[in-house]
């Protein structure tokens, strides 16, 4: 081997090492330029705008976090992207919708109010039922999804379960379409939790709305996330999930029922996604068969952003993506139409610069 071949090593090294900084510099320059224009040159947004955007960012971020945790749990344990996870959220949204519709249809007249319906007579119970049903139905769908579409493909090369997941996503979307028709529906919130109402904060002499539904969403999300963290850290179920994620075979040898654990993981991710779906419906009103698709992708972005397999990362990632998506278009002076582009752009950027995510991946190592 002559020395001239030795001089090619520079080409042999990561071409990415040259491309990446250039790309990064371009992106950074673009962002800074836009920020400069919006903040310094035009400066037409007062602080009340930013606070309002921040609040909606937090709210949507909470929803993304819940969905992202589901993605990260399944990826950590099966090393596959559950493409159909967004559809679990959609299932939750629909289930909650039907409960609310029923609650609004059942009449419970009183002397004072002959037109009273169940939803307004017992709003807490109604909301509780909506969440319960939404979460349970989504969990059930998740359970059967794993059993039918993923379990038979357990050992197969990675591409195959992924395609099955794509098929499952299609199936769920279309079942929903065929069962419920393409009609766009809206959540009929109980009066107590009416959309749009909220506490008013005065900033700069202008009112900023802190919506009740938003606060509710945020609080409930935090509660659910804390419960999940507790389960993962302190219960046997959580321990078996972590064990199976780390090394499936050894976990089986240690007496852990791997199939059961994987099913449980899907159930938990379904519960969270279902809750997210109901929250979405309460806060955003919309119910349609592809409602889970884009939030699903954004939640996956969040999961990767925080480090796939890392639950804390998913939580933080969701919040961050939510806020960037909310504040981004205004801060960068870009049309609101392009806000989805921002999420995708973040995804691509993260995967280029730090594919292991902000807080680092938590995955089983591939052995050579």
């Amino acid at each position, binding site marked *: 081997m002559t020395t001239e071949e030795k001089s090619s090593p520079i080409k042999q090294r990561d071409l990415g090492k040259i491309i990446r900084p250039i790309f990064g510099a371009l992106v950074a320059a673009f962002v800074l330029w836009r920020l400069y224009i919006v903040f310094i040159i035009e400066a037409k947004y007062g602080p009340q705008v930013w606070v309002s955007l921040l609040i909606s960012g937090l709210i949507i971020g909470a929803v993304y976090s819940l969905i992202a945790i589901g993605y990260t749990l399944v990826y950590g344990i099966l090393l596959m992207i559950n493409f159909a996870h967004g559809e679990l959220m959609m299932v939750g949204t629909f289930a909650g919708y039907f409960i609310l519709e029923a609650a609004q249809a059942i009449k419970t007249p009183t002397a004072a109010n002959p037109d009273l319906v169940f939803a307004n007579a017992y709003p807490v119970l109604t909301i509780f039922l909506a969440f319960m049903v939404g979460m349970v139905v989504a969990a059930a769908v998740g359970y059967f999804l794993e059993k039918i579409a993923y379990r038979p493909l357990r050992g197969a090369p990675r591409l195959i379960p992924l395609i*099955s997941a794509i098929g499952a996503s299609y199936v769920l979307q279309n079942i929903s379409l065929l069962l419920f028709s393409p009609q766009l529906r809206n959540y009929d919130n109980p009066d107590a939790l009416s959309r749009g109402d909220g506490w008013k904060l005065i900033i700069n002499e202008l009112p900023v709305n802190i919506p009740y539904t938003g606060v509710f969403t945020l609080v409930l999300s935090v509660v659910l996330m804390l419960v999940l963290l507790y389960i993962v850290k302190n219960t046997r179920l959580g321990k078996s999930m972590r064990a199976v994620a780390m090394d499936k075979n050894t976990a089986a040898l240690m007496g852990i029922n791997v199939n059961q654990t994987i099913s449980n993981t899907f159930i938990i991710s379904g519960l969270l996604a279902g809750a997210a779906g109901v929250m979405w419906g309460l806060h955003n009103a919309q119910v349609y068969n592809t409602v889970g698709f884009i939030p699903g992708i954004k939640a996956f972005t969040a999961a990767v952003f925080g480090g796939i397999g890392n639950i804390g990362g998913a939580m933080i990632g969701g919040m961050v993506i939510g806020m960037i998506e909310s504040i981004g278009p205004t801060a960068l002076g870009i049309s609101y139409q392009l806000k989805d582009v921002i999420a995708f752009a973040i995804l691509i950027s993260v995967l*280029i610069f730090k594919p292991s995510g902000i807080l680092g991946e938590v995955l089983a190592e591939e052995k050579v």
Partner: protein
Amino acid sequence: MKNRQNQNRDMLQKGVVFAIIIIFIMAIGFHEIAASLTSRIFNVDVRRGSIAEVRFMMVFFGLYAFLTGWSNSGEEGSPAKKILHGLIVSVIAGLIVVLFDLILLFLTRNEIDIRAYLTAFSIESMNYFLFNKNQFGLLYHFGFFTVFGFAGCALKVLLNSASAQNIKERISNFFKNTLNKINGAMPPFLPKYGKYILLLLVIAAAIILPRTWGSYINFVVGLVGLYVIAGIGLNIIVGLSGQLVLGYAAFFAMGAYSVALLNAPEPHNIMLGFWPSIIIAIFMAILAGLLLGIPLMGLRGDYLAIVTLGFGEIIRILLKSDLLVDLTGGPRGINDIHGPTLFGRPFSSDIDFVYIIFACIALTIFVYNRLQNSRTGRAWLSIKEDAIAAQATGVNLRRYKLLALCIGAAFAGLVGGISAARNQFTGPNDHSLLVSMNVLSLVIVGGVNSIPGIILGAFALKGLPEILREVQTYRQLAFGILLIVMMIMRPKGLWPASRPEYEQYEDSNASVKNPRREKK
């Protein structure tokens, strides 16, 4: 020998599953379509738009019950036991369906209309499911399940019994012998020139048929043809080099918009002409491939899938946005794209386009075959099989992955460009995720790395729904189910590929060759 408890639970489970399937079919409104299809099969003239007569619903239901029995005949024990197994499953399914029918009865009796929530549950539809016989419909259902389930199960057991096996073997032997005699009797020169004669016939057909079978079929054939080219292009990326790309439509967009923007009066009125535009279209698609690929070649498979999906969506959103309206025409798309001209004469009738598409298919197949049976093709496959080992064997991963992506993108650009000129229109929705998924589905279902498979897949995806009008609404659902089922049962596709043979054998005994090339 399964113990009694497991067997009982098994039968219960199967009964429940089959009941749920038929209930589900009703819930999505498919029972009406199925009955229409059934009536068409039996060749009864049904005016389009009307629901077929009740008897066809009965036939469909009976067939389903028969299938339930057939699929569930027992596995062990005497024939009587096997039949009993199937019968019990059918009866259980029947009972559950009867319970469901009670609900339907309640709804129809009280005239409760829940169509706002569940579209298929109109009064007519529910009655139709009950054969328009109201409460007697329940008895019919139960009876059908019992009788036809028994029949299906009994028939299967009969066909699998020892005596039946003998008969089956004798029949198949008879056919094999006849086939061999025919083979032997053929004049010896035929096999050698057979290939060329066949090729000539195909070319002749390709030239003559488009002139004879009418505009509509030309349209469908052209559409299927474009999907074949796209499928082969995507196969180079997914099937040969193993990179799952979900945003393939972005490359279509590159090609389509190149041709469109250069050949339409609005927004730019450049009128460059079709042929130069196609070259530019392919080039733009390759450029997009490079831009996408260079930063992302190091990503692992599932990440690449999502990122390419994101990329496809970004392109679509950008094309649709107001931001680039001046450049790209926005959500309304680009209209009135002028077609190709050949030696001054317009070459844009539907027949001409079919010729163009046929020529492109031939080119694509040619290039694909040359590539997959070469050092490049083998390098790609080695990356797909085991990228780490491939790299250690000397394959430069980045270079080859990028190459596959760009060549695949080039084909997509070609398809996009031709499609835009043929439809004389293109818009952001022509290049949605759905299109990407369609191409991916047809490659996977048809058979990865298999040209006949991809052709089959394209026909099944695009051709069949045109013929089977009724099932249009159920097309996507069917494809989703098909993807899952295929992955579980036949991951290599409907028409699997096989690797080329290199060794020369003295004996041309077919049975010796088979074990080598088919995966056990």
